[in-house]
């Protein structure tokens, strides 16, 4: 029997996210954002992280505001529903954080290249844009068959991916559904992988539907049971988006002072995910729960 990779959030973060680590997360874009893992990174006081993803719906802004971040390699950092990420803007304008400017496609290509084991991938995007001036991982390359100019995107291979999934067994065999964003690329391009999961299930449950598996279990380093671990973002099959938290965050981050209050209230004083869930309260959970269920039909993998 292979050894279990199941561990506490504290163990997973302290074991695989170090000062200076490069971390790809928020890989599903607006859904299944690993807020619980991100908040544990803040509580453990990580410094000088490089954060990587296409768009990050307020989690990057929080990590930046908490002083964990040195570099951002991303296409968009802000609050999807309101726009500006104030901590991000403040930190960049004070030269506390460096930005490598991507588009959603170029960051996907960079992670894809890392996942595929090539040092670059060609594309037709971003040509003529100024991204080439603020991203050293963008150059051009000429197709050896057609002579056509392509953009070339350098591979990114993060130290660690933090991905939130619906179901995982103790070995990192996991089911994910819904929009997948760049979650597969994040897992396959990274040296270590932390999965946070709404449910821990048996290997049998996973293997009953192997097309639903997100990536091979042998790529995974740590599995953390994290129910509500993506709140306030939505998780298909588990809970809806908590719009109010994102809307409120606009004011809670507009000034450094407001953000300090928010950080103390929602991250530092709750200690861990259990504390967060308790603080969130039952009525909020009930409000966000899935009301209209819609189940997939079974398919047969027999012989």
């Amino acid at each position: 029997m292979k050894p279990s990779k199941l561990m506490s959030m504290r163990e997973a973060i302290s074991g695989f996210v170090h000062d200076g680590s490069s971390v790809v997360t928020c890989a599903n874009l607006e859904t299944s954002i690993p807020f619980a893992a991100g908040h544990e990174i803040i509580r453990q006081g990580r410094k000088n992280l490089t954060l990587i993803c296409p768009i990050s719906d307020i989690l990057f802004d929080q990590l930046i505001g908490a002083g964990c971040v040195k570099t951002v390699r991303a296409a968009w950092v802000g609050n999807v529903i309101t726009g500006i990420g104030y901590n991000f803007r403040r930190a960049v304008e004070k030269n506390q954080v460096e930005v490598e400017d991507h588009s959603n496609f170029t960051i996907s290509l960079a992670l894809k290249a890392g996942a595929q084991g090539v040092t670059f991938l060609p594309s037709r995007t971003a040509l003529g844009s100024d991204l080439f001036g603020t991203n050293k991982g963008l150059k051009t390359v000429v197709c050896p068959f057609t002579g056509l100019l392509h953009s070339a995107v350098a591979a990114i291979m993060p130290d660690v991916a933090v991905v939130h999934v619906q179901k995982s067994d103790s070995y990192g065999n996991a089911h994910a559904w819904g929009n997948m964003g760049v979650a597969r690329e994040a897992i396959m391009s990274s040296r270590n992988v932390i999965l946070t999961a709404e449910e821990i299930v048996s290997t049998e449950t996973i293997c009953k539907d192997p097309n639903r598996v997100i990536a091979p279990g042998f790529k995974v380093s740590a599995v953390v049971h994290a129910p509500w671990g993506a709140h306030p973002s939505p998780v298909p099959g588990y809970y809806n988006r908590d719009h109010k938290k994102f809307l409120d965050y606009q004011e809670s981050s507009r000034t450094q002072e407001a953000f300090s209050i928010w950080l103390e209230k929602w991250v530092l004083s709750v200690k861990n995910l259990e504390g967060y869930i308790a603080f969130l309260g039952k009525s909020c959970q009930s409000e966000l729960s899935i009301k209209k269920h819609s189940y997939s039909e079974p398919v047969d993998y027999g012989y």
Partner: protein
Amino acid sequence: MDIKRSYTRSELMVTAAAREITEDEVVFVGMRLPLLGFLLAKSLHAPGATGIYELGIIRESLAPAPILTMGDLPNLYMSHWLADTFDTMSILQAGLVDLSFIGGAQVDRYGNLNTTLTGKPLKTRLPGSGGACDLASLARRHIIIMAHEKRRFVSKVDYITSPGYGNGKGWREKVGLVRGGPSAVITTLGIFRFDQESCEMILSSVHPGVTLNDIHKETGWSIRVSNKLSETPEPTPKELDILRQLDYQGYWTGK
């Protein structure tokens, strides 16, 4: 100046955006006003349009409940394909996307768009490209939606996040872009299209109650005016009715 009218400026803009969508088109849908514009078109004259969302969603039907962001679970429910962001970007790169909408902080006379850095030197940090650069590079055409203010309508953007026509005709081909370019700019004051010869932005219609002078005052260069200048048609009661169901809290179009 909309006080006397039965609709807001945002409602007019969303309606104008919706009217740009033709039946059966494949539309790459962005957040906020573009999302509403797509949903409005789907509800009315373009029920066969397909929506592609960068999160990895393709759907041909309307979401069964109001959504504020494209990742809201009703937008996943009974969708036609849930896939990777890379899949949606490949579809875009392969030339299968007819139309997309993007917003921005700064636009110039050739439809180049900036959502990254402004100022000289570049000092004000904005959220960045997201998928906008890709949509401007790879869709068959794209439409820009934004507030019309002098600081935003500049002769030359400080930073090209999403390429328009660069410095004029032939630029896109020269830098290696394979297709596309902006087909319209919908602002708080009017609708602009692009001259086929010069690739320069031309005022095509002014919104009701807006004067040519208003537009000149808020535009940072000497804007050309179409010789077929018209007034932007107002939203119909039916359009307003649907739109207010979609944005039932008035979150996007209430003001």
